[in-house]
């Protein structure tokens, strides 16, 4: 049983386990590239779809039904189906209009389209994914959402090249102002959405994917300008994929963890796990346990690039 592993890390193991057993409501984010929250709500009202607005992020609507895909506002690209807690890292990344922003593990695009909306669809948003099939989903999702500030690339995020962005005859490799590094992970925290999420769990897989996460985060730090922001996130509980990755990258790259506020109830990152001790600053990362806000599980850290 995967969840037992994390009982020592939670304040209320029974509430944690009970929350993981409850399904999550269908949630959509209003895509403000194409409409306003008010018009999207009006369209849902006219269609007879019931919903509840999340208090922590006004664009998030929890639907009564499971089929937003067959509603008018969805067809118009006004809505994007997205697990509620996964709207958190873009909020922490806080991209500004006109900036250069990197999303190295972008497909299928919920966070990418959220970043684009926060940038008012201006500036340059580079969305990368190594999987061509998933990239095709990203492209159609972005086009449905009307996103036009997007560059889509198909690279291995561990050694993402800036060469495509270098003008001919120039050595200039323009670095990013911000990066949202939402890495592939063991997805333990999505158990409420995908009841079989733990079926193929193994420590070997966790350790293997942690190595990939570390290289992806390292590369993102290197391609971000000094003073720039890198947000690291996963939808998993395993410290091996979270604090341990941060600990390694802090030692290898010029960056530091910074404190940040979020409109959700969270717990600090853990500094020791299974006999390992991590850099004390990993406490600045934030863990979202499912029972705290009745969401999926999530992990989020904010780094500043120092050189």
């Amino acid at each position: 049983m995967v969840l037992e592993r994390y009982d020592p890390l939670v304040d209320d193991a029974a509430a944690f386990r009970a929350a993981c057993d409850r399904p999550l409501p269908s949630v959509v984010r209003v895509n403000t590239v194409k409409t306003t929250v008010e018009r999207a709500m009006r369209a849902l009202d006219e269609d007879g779809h019931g919903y509840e607005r999340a208090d922590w992020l006004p664009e998030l609507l929890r639907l009564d039904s499971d089929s937003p895909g067959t509603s008018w506002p969805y067809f118009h690209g006004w809505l994007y189906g997205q697990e509620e807690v996964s709207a958190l890292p873009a909020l922490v990344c806080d991209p500004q209009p006109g900036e250069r922003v990197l999303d190295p593990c972008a497909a299928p695009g919920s966070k990418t389209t959220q970043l684009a909306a926060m940038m008012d669809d201006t500036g340059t948003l580079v969305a990368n994914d190594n999987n061509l099939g998933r990239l095709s989903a990203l492209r159609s999702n972005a086009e449905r959402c009307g996103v036009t500030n997007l560059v889509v690339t198909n690279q291995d995020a561990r050694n993402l090249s800036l060469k495509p962005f270098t003008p001919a005859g120039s050595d200039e490799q323009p670095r990013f102002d911000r990066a949202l590094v939402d890495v592939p992970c063991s997805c333990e925290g999505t158990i409420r959405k995908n009841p079989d999420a733990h079926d193929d769990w193994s420590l070997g897989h966790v350790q293997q994917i942690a190595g990939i996460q570390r290289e992806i985060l390292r590369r993102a730090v290197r391609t971000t300008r000094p003073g720039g922001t890198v947000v690291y996130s996963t939808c998993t509980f395993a410290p091996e994929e979270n604090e341990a990755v941060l600990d390694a990258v802090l030692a290898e790259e010029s960056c530091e963890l910074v404190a940040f506020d979020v409109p959700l109830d969270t717990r600090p990152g853990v500094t020791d796990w299974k006999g390992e001790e991590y850099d004390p600053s990993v406490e600045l990362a934030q863990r979202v346990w499912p029972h705290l806000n009745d969401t999926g599980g999530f992990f989020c850290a904010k780094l500043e690039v120092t050189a």
Partner: protein
Amino acid sequence: MSDGPGEDFATYDERRDDADGTFEENRSQVFERLPETAADREVEGRPSREAVVDFWADRFGVPPETFDGYTFWEKGAGKLWAYAGDAPDAIDVEALGMVFLRVRQDHWKPTTDAVQRFARDASENVVLLDDEQAKRFVAGEDQDLKWDGDWGYLVVSHDLAGAVEPLGVGLYLYGELRSQVPKGRKRDID
């Protein structure tokens, strides 16, 4: 664009609004920026930015300033992209902004997503459907329709949440509105 029979409308159906745009001939593997005007043209058959903006204005009444801040690019023969960010010429990437117009064919054809994004202020060659007609249109059905305007590609709209919203592109021929909503965008609305 002329109206009425006599023109060979078979040309309309040559290229569909496909998702991956796999064209054989004359295909560029990188994104090349459109010339500002016809006088700046270096690649045969490539329209200028000016001609593209004029097309949207002349055919659909879309104000030219809608495209301020956008650059236009061609990748693949006749597939134009509208992009709001910065990029060097000949950039070799998978996508740059959104596919918004098919050219290098007799009748230029906007994409569904471009019409939704840019044609909200369209004032010409816009057909307004009622709810039932709109549902048939997005399901991909062709339907009989009375329309006194031009034949050819139209912006197809309906009323939603207190305003007119473009749904996509229809091809009007011989009293029939043919849905051009691409396969992956078709929906059976509840």
